[in-house]
């Protein structure tokens, strides 16, 4: 066993104390800042009566950014939030274009031109007993 002088022991103890307490403080600071104070963003959107969206229509929604289709097989919706970095897409003649980084998607939501790599999300649509259209973001 090596001899540890009192001075060295105190030095070591001081260094250890400072490092451990700084680490704990930093960890505490990170946890403090990591808290999410805001309620989770809304995921359920009531679009109103089904009558507003006649058969064969496709409607671009503003909030949530999405496009709602009403076909013979029923209602369906496609998210218009770009899968690249989250801007809202603009509708074009042959699909949807992102104004931020020029990703392009076809009318079915498939990527036709990067930088986006994932196709647009299909959103769940439900019709309530009161015939309201509800779109879910999750």
């Amino acid at each position, binding site marked *: 066993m090596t001899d540890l002088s009192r001075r060295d022991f105190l030095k070591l103890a001081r260094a250890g104390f400072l490092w451990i307490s700084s680490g704990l403080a930093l960890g505490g600071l*990170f946890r403090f*800042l*990591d*808290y*999410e*104070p*805001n*309620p*989770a*963003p809304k995921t359920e959107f009531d679009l109103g009566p089904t009558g507003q969206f006649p058969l064969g229509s496709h409607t671009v929604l*503003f*909030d949530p*950014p999405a496009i709602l289709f009403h076909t013979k097989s029923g209602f369906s919706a496609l998210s218009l939030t770009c899968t*690249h*970095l*989250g*801007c*809202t*897409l*603009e509708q074009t003649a042959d699909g949807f274009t992102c*104004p*931020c*980084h*020029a990703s392009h998607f076809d009318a079915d939501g498939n990527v036709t031109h*990067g*930088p986006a*790599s994932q196709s647009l999300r299909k959103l769940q649509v439900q019709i309530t007993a009161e015939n309201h259209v509800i779109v879910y973001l999750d």
Partner: protein
Amino acid sequence: MRPSFFHHLHPPTIPAAQARWRHTLSAGGTAVFLMLILGVTGVLEMFYYIPNPEEAALSVQTITYHVPFGGFIRNLHYWSAQLLLIVSAIHLLRVVFTAAYASPRRFNYLLGLGLFILAIMLDFTGYILRWDVDICWPLTTGTNLLKTIPFIGNFFFRIAVGGGEACETALLRLYTWHIFGLTIPLVIIGIWHAFRVRRDGGIAVPPPALRSDKARLPRNELVRREVLMLFIVGILLILLSTFVPAPIAPAMIGKPSPDAETRAPWFFLWVQQMLKWGDPFIFGVLIPFGILVILALIPYIFPKPADSDIGTWFPKSNRLAQIVVSIIALIVIMLTLMTFIP
């Protein structure tokens, strides 16, 4: 008289050759001047600014259109911030092109680089504080970029904006980062940087034995030149702030329409251009970070400039650093220009 911090930064005489405008370009001193203006005008804006998503843009309109001289104060703050980035970039280029980063100034070079990054982050957060329709897409893409970092991305995102959707919730966090979280480190590191300039022997010069020009410049002459520069920059700022108003747009109520501004602020246009090319983590995070690492390593791994070359323009012995930094600067400028091509 008891020596003060002013005397620390202004010794009785300094080597005349390196005190010339054509050597320093006055970039560091101008940056200090701009930071002082930013501090004063920023505090004045705080008397009216309300960091609340519902009221922020309206309070900016109050400052701009109702408060006497409010528009002018805001324009001064805006233009000082933009000039600060340009002047800092010029300062960095000057330091590299005159081999001024060489030992013993290596550590101070890193402090300077840190200040530059803080200034960029302050400019971005300040721009977001407008909280009008034109800031939402740059804010969304900028903060979503954080999320693409593997493992710790979501943590960074929460620390920066507090979670949720950036355009709905980020304001209070970014306000606090802007006013305290970034400004206090900028002030501390800024003072440290200025202190180290003198501690490391003043403006970079060859050692006394290798100097061809032995002339010295007295303190009063240095101060005279500084004041002259301060007047020139001050007049430029007043002219800009009088005739070119800082951008402002209608308040953001709910999600902005897709036809709102999608261009990044001018100093991030080069990143926006790269983001069009592919994976956001590689082009938006790794490459900009890689450039920073290269800049930070210049004094440590690049060939050491010769003693006689320190503080002279474009010396042979640090050619490699000059070439690398020139290429980086050209690429950034080219990418920025490319965003203007339809």
